[in-house]
């Protein structure tokens, strides 16, 4: 079993991030202390990945880490049962959607998908690349795209741009009044104030948070066949 990865989150951060290896072996409980021997003591953010850990296993893992001098600051996992166990033990835990790996995806390759017509409550439209919806998105409806979400109408439902992890993606609408906005793995509630009529707005990630601003002209979306990789 490969050694758990130990990486610093950022220069200023005192907590380090301990990422457990991708698979779980039956005798992980015995093998773990040797692997952790190389990690410097101190507080860590634990990334459990896809490990399914019930309360007992998680407690054992925490005890093992503590024996090596590592204290758990926070926890991230792809499995909800692990998050639930962590909460039960009083730890701060976050569920990470497995497919939302933080790496940019070449969504421009899939081009632009056009959908005409209003989406009613309960409907969901998804696109591999960018999505242009001509019509309204009613409350209770969802639009998602691996690239940008462009609504030529009123966005009143939930929009998810960059749903495969691209945090450069944008959400633009003629009238941005969403229930919820999601870009990559950031989530934000829609604004409470009524928007000015005739004022198109866009949402994008700035400094790790979703912000809403006046819509800017879009860079040209290059169709897949014309894309020239040498310009990247």
């Amino acid at each position: 079993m490969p050694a758990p990865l130990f990486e610093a989150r950022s220069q200023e951060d005192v907590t380090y991030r301990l990422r457990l290896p991708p698979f779980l072996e039956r005798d992980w409980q015995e093998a773990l202390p040797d692997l952790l021997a190389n990690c410097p003591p101190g507080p860590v953010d634990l990334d459990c990945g896809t490990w399914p850990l019930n309360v007992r296993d998680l407690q054992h893992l925490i005890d093992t880490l503590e024996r090596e001098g590592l204290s758990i600051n926070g926890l991230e996992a792809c499995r909800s049962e692990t998050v639930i166990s962590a909460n039960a033990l009083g730890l701060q835990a976050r569920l990470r959607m497995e497919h939302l790996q933080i790496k940019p995806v070449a969504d421009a390759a899939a081009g632009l998908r056009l959908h005409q017509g209003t989406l009613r409550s309960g409907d969901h439209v998804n696109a591999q690349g960018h999505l242009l919806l001509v019509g309204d998105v009613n409350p209770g409806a969802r639009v998602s795209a691996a690239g940008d979400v462009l609504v030529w109408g009123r966005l009143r439902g939930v929009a998810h741009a960059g749903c495969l992890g691209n945090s450069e993606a944008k959400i633009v609408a003629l009238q941005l009044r969403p229930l919820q906005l999601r870009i990559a793995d950031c989530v934000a509630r829609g604004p409470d104030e009524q928007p000015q009529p005739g004022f198109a707005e866009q949402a994008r990630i700035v400094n790790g948070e979703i912000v809403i601003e006046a819509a800017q002209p879009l860079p040209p979306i290059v169709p897949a066949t014309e894309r020239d990789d040498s310009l990247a």
Partner: protein
Amino acid sequence: MAPTSRTILICSGKGGVGKTTLTANLGIALARQGQKTVVLDADFGLRNLDLLLGLENRIVYTAQEVLAQTCRLEQALVRHKQEPNLALLPAGNPRMLEWLKPEDMQSIVSMLQKQFDYVLIDCPAGIEDGFKNAAAAAREAIVITTPEVSAVRDADRVIGLLNTRGVSPVQLVLNRVRPKMMANQEMLAVDDVTDILALPLLGLVLEDEQVIVSTNRGEPLTLNGGGSPAARAYANIARRLQGEDVPLIDPAKEGRGLRAKVRRLMQKKIF
């Protein structure tokens, strides 16, 4: 089949917004205006249409016996004593839900289409099998909603489902409107509702206490020639369905004129 027989589904998504009341009153109103009308209760689990029409104690056979061919359609239909143009086909018993298929509803409706100008189907609440079976048999639909966020959300969902099933045209009735609350912006405005639902407004019915009285008595409001606002609204909806151009009431103006004030005074109990 009567050449212009129309089959209209009356649905809402949300429960309790006034489907059965609309079906009963619309049935009476159409019958009064000369149309041979049948109302079909498609809510086999919790049937109410017979109660509202005051025909509960005259039911012998139901849709179930008609399907099983234990009786003729004529024996199951209950004719309204005061409005002979109106008939009711009562709902079967709840156990029918286990085996009822869309084709069964379609066969009942096609039997009814042969002798009636209007077939009104009272849909159960929700979007499950009851709704799906009823929608399979309908050609057009009337979606009824109240000016409340949850009702509008559910209506939006239902309209989407009707669109995918090719039910057309779908029209909208806005029920239980309170003009004072709308004026104070405590209730969704008519425009707010039509903005989201994007459907033509077939009618607007004001909140009316008389509806409760009429339900308990089993006498739909439209039966007594309509003095109350709701009764007039239902009669107007019937006329619009037949193609007449009747202007919609404006909630802001309703209840202000001298006539309305006198009417209210007459209806108020003084002792």
